[in-house]
């Protein structure tokens, strides 16, 4: 409380005022305008040219000549201040308005360098903010892209899974078809594969001609001979028979050691299945006879017998998981197998039904009634001696399935 009161604002000495005036106005363009009550220009002065106001005409409305005044006059308050106005390019002024008597005064006090300084700061702040905004926007885009990528990745995974499944299915299909190929003449297998018809693999019943054949004395031979000799003989035997089966377009059901089974009329339909079976049998007999002659020279006694039967069988994929075979089962198969067992070397034993069908084209000899294992009644059996008079008529199969 004892401290001295603040010095009363004594008027500043003229030298200080002069100094302040110099400091305030240094390097600043200052211009002024005075307007009368009708807002006509009364007088103007200072550095008007700096603001592009050098062509002012006193006595005329000021708003027409100084367009920045549009809307500001008459003043609604006094003094009135409009800061930092870029009046013309590169020249910024604070506008100071006041009323004196009936007259309106305007002073333009240049603040270009203050404006430039403020602008540098503001520019930095805004540039920084814009960068941050841009960064945030890019991050959002990045995040969206990442999510999209993830989704696409999932999609690819799913596709790969279904692709694997599809490949597996196709491989299985191919395997099935390849199996089929083993039983069929290649041309027919190709046809079935390209038709892609899976129905042929379904179980069905059909009237087929079945042929069984095997070697006589093979077991004894294989017990005495060297293993190489046995496999060589079998190779020759297969090499002789398989092309014949294919040539007659028979379905090779199985080939176990020296025994094999062929049937006709399935899966490829053939109207002359019985005739074909008999013709194939005759051709086989000839082929094996030629082989047997060669083997005999090497001291091996091997004979060949065939059985043929005709009748309904169940056909299709038969077996259990993982080991399906296209095969036929039924009495007709048993009968043909038993007839084959009973056949002596060079004999082609056929049932009476077969004999009736081929009577026109084949020389047959009646063997009489044979009791066959697994059948309740004895069978009338004939032996095919040969084909009649060079008969070689074979109707080749068309490319169709049942």
């Amino acid at each position: 409380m004892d401290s001295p009161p603040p010095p009363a604002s004594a008027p500043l000495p003229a030298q200080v005022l002069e100094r302040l005036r110099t400091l305030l106005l240094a390097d600043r363009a200052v211009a002024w305008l005075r307007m009368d009550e009708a807002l006509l220009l009364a007088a103007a002065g200072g550095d008007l040219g700096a603001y592009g106001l050098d062509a002012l005409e006193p006595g005329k409305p000021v708003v027409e000549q100084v367009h920045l005044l549009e809307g500001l006059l008459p003043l609604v308050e006094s003094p009135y201040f409009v800061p930092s106005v870029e009046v013309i390019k590169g020249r910024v002024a604070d506008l100071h308005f006041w009323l004196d008597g009936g007259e309106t005064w305007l002073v333009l006090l240049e603040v270009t360098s203050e404006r430039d300084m403020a602008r540098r700061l503001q520019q930095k702040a805004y540039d920084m903010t814009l960068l941050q905004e841009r960064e945030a926007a890019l991050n959002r885009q990045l995040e969206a892209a990442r999510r999209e990528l993830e989704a696409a990745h999932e999609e690819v995974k799913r596709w790969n899974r279904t692709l694997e499944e599809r490949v597996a299915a196709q491989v299985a299909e191919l395997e099935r078809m390849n199996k089929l190929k083993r039983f069929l003449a290649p041309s027919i297998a190709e046809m079935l594969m390209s038709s892609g018809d899976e129905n042929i693999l379904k179980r069905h019943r059909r009237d087929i001609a079945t042929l069984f054949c095997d070697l006589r004395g093979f077991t004894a031979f294989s017990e005495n001979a060297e293993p190489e000799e046995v496999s060589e003989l079998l190779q020759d035997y297969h090499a002789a028979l398989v092309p014949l089966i294919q040539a007659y377009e028979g379905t090779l059901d199985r080939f176990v050691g020296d025994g094999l089974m062929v049937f006709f009329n399935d899966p490829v339909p053939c109207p002359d299945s019985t005739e074909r079976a008999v013709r194939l049998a005759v051709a086989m007999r000839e082929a094996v006879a030629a082989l047997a002659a060669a083997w005999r020279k090497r001291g091996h006694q091997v004979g060949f017998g065939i059985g043929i039967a005709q009748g309904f069988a169940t056909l299709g994929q038969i077996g259990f998981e993982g080991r399906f075979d296209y095969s036929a089962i039924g009495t007709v198969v048993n009968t043909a197998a038993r007839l084959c067992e009973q056949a002596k070397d060079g004999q082609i034993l056929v049932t009476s039904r077969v004999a009736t069908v081929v009577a026109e084209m084949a020389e047959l000899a009646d063997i009489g009634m044979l009791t066959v294992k697994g059948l309740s009644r004895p069978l009338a059996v004939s032996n095919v001696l040969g084909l009649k008079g060079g008969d070689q008529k074979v109707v080749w199969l068309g490319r169709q399935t049942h």
Partner: protein
Amino acid sequence: MTMAVQKKICMLGGFSVGKTSLVKRYVESVFSETYLTTVGVKIDKKAVVLGDKTVNLILWDLAGEDDMSSLRLSYMRGAAGYMLVADGTRPATLEMALSLRKRVEAEYGQLPFALLINKKDLTEQWTVTDADLGKLRGDGWWVQSSSARTGEGVDDAFADLATRILG
């Protein structure tokens, strides 16, 4: 000597939305990529012929808004109308334009104005949908998209605003 009609129009909006660029395109028919922010206000004049009348538009290009600085509404004194500008690639600037309108109307009442959604040429970053524009129009806004860079929509926006100012 008949005095040409003279009207003051203010450019308002968030910072860096293109207010200065729009004026420059309109008055000088040029565009610059460089961003030079406005401090205070820059005044330009453009004579526009509307039918048989020539109107001098006195364009007050104001400093942009950000969250910190608040508009010096005193610059609006005597304005006959105003142009709200937003940046179509920055949704926040549209919000800014909507709030500016409220503040102007609280101080000066209803004046003719137009809303320009600018930078239409930046289609890849554009976030404003036609539906957004449609909704604003439904609410009675005069709204158009524009590009100071290509000049699209610029002359029309000013001419339309001037027409409405003249009533």
